[in-house]
């Protein structure tokens, strides 16, 4: 297997270097470096969006989620992604219109313009920072656990993390956003191919689809229906996940930015349904890997399951490609998150271009270090940790949604509402507030509160502004 791992990594790094050289230009403006000139075509746009969305969380977290909690994991992510791509059609159009009116350097900067106060930008940056750092750390954690299982005692886990973080920083600082887009295209292709190669092997080893599900039923029948053996997939959990996932393009700046940098609306719309098709294909493969794990490794730890199902039960070339695929997925997703944080910071920094770029690059480095520290502290429940990250960022959705869709200047009360929701959600993670209030889960309650309050605020302001002759001058 080692030979194949080396061959695949040499091929992968050669492609990355090619992408870096192709995208490297001296004296790039910060707009060119951070947003690739906002001129992405359909293929690169769809691949970079998909690669930023699907990561180690999909590669490792989803098979494990299916294995432990059953087929409801499909609704948790794939169905939610289907709803998200539909939502992108509507939201992306509004977002691009607003970005054209106000200018776009980053979402935080755009919100500062929309609200006329820097607090809107700070709120967005704060929530992104708070949840993207742990989310990026999930990827690093996933890969370090996986490589540690594949090559025990070769390096400590933090050693694998360090290698990835150093590569990530080098690649991002040299190539910029354009290089990341190319690496995303490479990663997306590898991810799709390798997941189906592994899934095909899993189906074959269990004697076909019918036989696979028969064996799952014999092992643990509750895996084949909702809410699953751990009673996780009740309607509230699934609905909360749907809202959090649908809000990803609104609240996660690496995704929002990818809607704006498409070269035109037509390309963005094509990108939306292409991402939907990609999501179905990728997540479908993880069902079969998870079901295979439920039959063969029902009591194994996540680490044992990953190393056996993704590596040791596979042919050597597939195992080699799996290692590269996971590494690539991790690299591109983490890069996009760190880069997005840098871009959000840049969008709020005043001053000369060179100074702004210098500060941004320093902070890219600092963010990467923070990610590494988090990665060494967190657990292995990758899918659930990702959901916490999605839900946390979704609490800030009213700010961005109102800023983007409202033709009137949104009220500052929306910033306060989002902060209250965010604070309560953080308190619930810390165990200071119960995660269930009466019959409702806390996240559902917070969504009701934030979206309800946002609707009221927008309606009241629309009514009040309708009486003012200068009502729409903020556009």
């Amino acid at each position: 297997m080692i030979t194949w791992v080396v061959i695949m990594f040499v091929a992968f790094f050669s492609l990355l270097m090619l992408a870096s050289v192709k995208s490297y230009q001296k004296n790039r403006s910060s707009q060119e470096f951070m947003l690739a000139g906002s001129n992405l075509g359909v293929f690169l746009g769809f691949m970079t969006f998909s690669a930023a969305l699907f990561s180690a969380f999909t590669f490792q977290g989803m098979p494990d989620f299916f294995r432990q909690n059953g087929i409801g994991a499909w609704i948790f992510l794939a169905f939610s992604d289907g709803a998200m791509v539909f939502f992108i059609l509507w939201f992306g159009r509004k977002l691009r219109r607003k970005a054209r009116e106000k200018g776009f350097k980053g979402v935080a900067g755009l919100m500062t313009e929309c609200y006329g106060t820097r607090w809107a930008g700070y709120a967005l940056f704060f929530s992104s920072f708070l949840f993207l750092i742990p989310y990026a750390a999930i990827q690093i954690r996933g890969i370090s656990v996986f490589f540690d299982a594949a090559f025990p005692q070769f390096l400590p886990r933090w050693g694998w993390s360090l290698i990835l973080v150093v590569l990530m920083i080098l690649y991002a600082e040299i190539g910029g956003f354009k290089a990341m887009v190319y690496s995303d295209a490479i990663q997306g292709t590898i991810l799709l191919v390798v997941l189906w190669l592994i899934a095909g092997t899993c189906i074959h080893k269990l004697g076909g689809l019918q036989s696979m599900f028969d064996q799952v039923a014999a092992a643990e029948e509750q895996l084949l229906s909702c809410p699953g053996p751990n009673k996780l997939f009740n309607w509230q959990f699934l609905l909360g996940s749907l809202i959090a996932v649908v809000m990803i393009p609104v609240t996660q700046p690496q995704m929002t930015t990818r809607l704006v940098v498409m070269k035109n609306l037509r390309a963005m719309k094509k990108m939306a349904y292409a991402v939907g098709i990609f999501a179905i294909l990728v997540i479908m493969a993880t069902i079969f890997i998870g079901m295979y794990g439920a039959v063969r490794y029902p009591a194994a730890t996540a680490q044992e399951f990953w190393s056996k199902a993704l590596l040791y039960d596979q042919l050597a070339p597939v195992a080699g490609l799996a290692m590269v695929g996971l590494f690539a997925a991790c690299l591109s997703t983490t890069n996009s998150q760190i880069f997005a944080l840098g871009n959000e910071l840049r969008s709020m920094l005043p001053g000369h271009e060179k100074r702004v770029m210098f500060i941004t690059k320093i902070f890219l480095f600092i963010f990467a270090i923070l990610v590494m520290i988090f990665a060494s502290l967190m657990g292995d429940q990758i899918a659930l940790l990702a959901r916490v990250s999605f839900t946390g960022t979704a609490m800030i959705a009213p700010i961005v949604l109102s800023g983007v869709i409202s033709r009137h200047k949104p009220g500052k009360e929306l910033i306060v509402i989002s902060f209250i929701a965010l604070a309560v959600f953080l308190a619930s993670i810390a165990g200071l507030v119960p995660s269930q209030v009466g019959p409702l889960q806390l996240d559902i309650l917070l969504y009701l509160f934030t979206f309800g309050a946002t609707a009221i605020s927008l309606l009241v302001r629309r009514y009040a502004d309708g009486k003012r002759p200068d009502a729409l001058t903020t556009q």
Partner: protein
Amino acid sequence: MKNSKLLWRLCVAAAILIIILTFSPLVIAPGKTTPSLFGMPYTLWVSILTTIALVVLTYLGSKVLPDEEEDNQ
């Protein structure tokens, strides 16, 4: 233009209906595994179909949603 708006609203209504159906006992009925399709349990294959339906709606929506922005510039 008027037709496009109507068709887009129909797409939105259909998407909302699919989401409601998927979160109803019609799809996520506790413990329901039959009828199966290609060996897949009921909730799985039906939710795969509803996901495909959402992506098809996204395709249809992309055709009817007006393109009035920068494309015309």
